[in-house]
């Protein structure tokens, strides 16, 4: 076993895999388009699962609104169909469109979380930014370019659920990489710096 492998085993002692997980260590069956032949993914990071609470709660409320409205109007026995005597089929179409909109919103929320990932490989740090219909952006920097990393945990929920931001200063063209709302930011910052040191100690 080489010195590099030994050091790597001490930095990342165990594999932590999961299809839908916010921290994956040494992922299996994970590839990306611009991966080099000997490049290995060490860490895959997504935003903490709790950061999805906004759109999940929003969708639950939006899903309940038509039902509540229908019950209230029924209870008040209001003639909400008015003079135009809207047919039942219109109400059905409106309900279908409403729930289709909610399905799209949920799907987009999930995709936004799932595809906005940060990768740390044995060569570089890559930031994938994705938006369901606006853009996708991929930025990267070599591990040896990392100058320092800062973590920040602000707010009530980040404190409770242990998630926060990690800012990576680089000597490259793009000065800063922001890993937003990642789980256990201290661990992330520590591992990135250890991997940077490993790359600097054992050049290619």
């Amino acid at each position: 076993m080489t010195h590099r492998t030994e050091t790597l085993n001490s930095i990342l002692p165990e594999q932590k895999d999961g299809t839908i997980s916010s921290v994956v260590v040494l992922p299996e069956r994970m590839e990306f388009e611009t991966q080099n032949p000997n490049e290995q993914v060490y860490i895959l990071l997504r935003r903490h699962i709790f950061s999805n609470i906004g759109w999940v709660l929003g969708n639950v409320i939006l899903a309940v609104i038509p039902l509540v409205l229908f019950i209230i109007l029924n209870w008040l026995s209001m003639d909400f169909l008015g003079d135009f005597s809207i047919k039942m089929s219109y109400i059905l179409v409106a309900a279908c469109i409403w729930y289709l909109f909610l399905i799209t919103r949920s799907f987009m929320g999930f995709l936004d979380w799932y595809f906005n990932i940060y990768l740390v490989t044995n060569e570089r740090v890559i930031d994938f930014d994705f938006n369901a219909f606006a853009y996708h952006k991929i930025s990267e920097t070599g591990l040896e370019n990392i100058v320092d990393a800062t973590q920040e945990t602000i707010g009530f929920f980040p404190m409770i659920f242990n998630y926060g931001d990690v800012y990576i200063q680089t000597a490259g063209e793009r000065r800063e990489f922001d890993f937003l709302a990642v789980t256990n930011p201290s661990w992330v910052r520590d591992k990135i710096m250890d991997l940077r040191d490993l790359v600097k100690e054992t050049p290619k």
Partner: protein
Amino acid sequence: METETIFTVLVKIFIVIMLIIYLLVGIIMTKQIFLMNKAIKTKLAGFLNCAALIHMALILGVLAFAIVA
């Protein structure tokens, strides 16, 4: 009676236009998902491609239902 007919037609046109715009949004979204699944290959890639197609089918279904109804 005449007001009712005009109102009905206007609502129908509005709904169909909205759904056609929605369909375009769905197509762009599906394309983006395919692109991202190509850029990052994970275990869920196949499932997400299927989900994107099902989502498109749902939009088409609702559009057809709105036209028929």
